[in-house]
């Protein structure tokens, strides 16, 4: 899993580099400062950050063999993740309505590819969390339950740390 996360670092490193290179190339489209809604994205960031807490509590409960708490924290983590993805869909729709489509400019293309890729990762994480919850409930987890929860937890935390970087470099530092 750590090796996989190392390769994921490279993937997002490339996407963030591309965005940083193109963020000033807005053409006739809107500039980042004209479309970004910092209060809204801050709340989304907070939600994803708190989902890392609920995920680590699920891992902790799994190590204590507390199935009820593990299930509960996994579902709460999935709900927080869904809230984040919902916020991203809303944000993308708002940007589109303000004249920033995928092919409007190099800035918009690189922005949508980067944040879209991250959103897909979060969605895959949600599916993994819900699948794990179902497998735990039906006793279909092969091997150690705690280890399986921990593996999925690592992926989830990785998605969170990528957002920590995206939020600072893309949203808070002006182009």
């Amino acid at each position, binding site marked *: 899993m750590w090796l996989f996360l190392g390769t994921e670092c490279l993937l997002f*490193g*490339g996407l963030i580099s591309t965005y940083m290179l193109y963020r000033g190339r807005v053409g006739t489209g809107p500039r980042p400062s004209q479309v970004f809604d910092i209060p809204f994205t*801050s709340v989304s960031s907070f939600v994803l950050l708190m989902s890392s*807490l609920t995920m680590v509590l699920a*891992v902790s409960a799994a190590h204590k063999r507390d199935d009820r708490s593990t299930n509960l924290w996994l579902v709460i983590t999935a709900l927080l993740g869904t809230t984040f993805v919902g916020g991203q869909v809303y944000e993308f729709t708002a940007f589109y309505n303000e004249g920033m489509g995928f092919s409007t400019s190099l800035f918009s293309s690189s922005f949508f590819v980067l944040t879209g890729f991250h959103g897909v990762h979060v969605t895959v994480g949600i599916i993994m969390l819900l699948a794990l919850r179902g497998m735990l409930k039906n006793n279909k987890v092969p091997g150690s339950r705690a280890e399986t929860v921990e593996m999925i937890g690592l992926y989830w*935390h990785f998605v969170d*740390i990528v957002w920590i*970087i995206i939020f600072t470099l893309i949203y*808070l530092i002006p182009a």
Partner: protein
Amino acid sequence: MNTTATTDSHATEHGLSTAGYVRIALILAAITGLEVSTYYVDFGRLFLPALLIMMAIKFVMVVSYFMHLKFDNKVFSWLFYTGLVLAVGVYCAALATFKFFG
């Protein structure tokens, strides 16, 4: 009594206690609040370094405590941080390429 002692030691074996994790989350939330404040308050020349330092602190805290890297085998740290350093290298190389040849 014995069960409680066993579960507590099991929890610390794999990281922090529940209260410890909540404390880390509160610190992360406070740093996020500080980060957002830089958007509204003029930090002058400190703006960029402050933001980057806060981002790095949050990153390291999540990796160390939530991902348990601090408590795991050092091989995992090497695997992860090698990927990270390579990624930063890719970023710097790409930026330098466009600066000199773009």
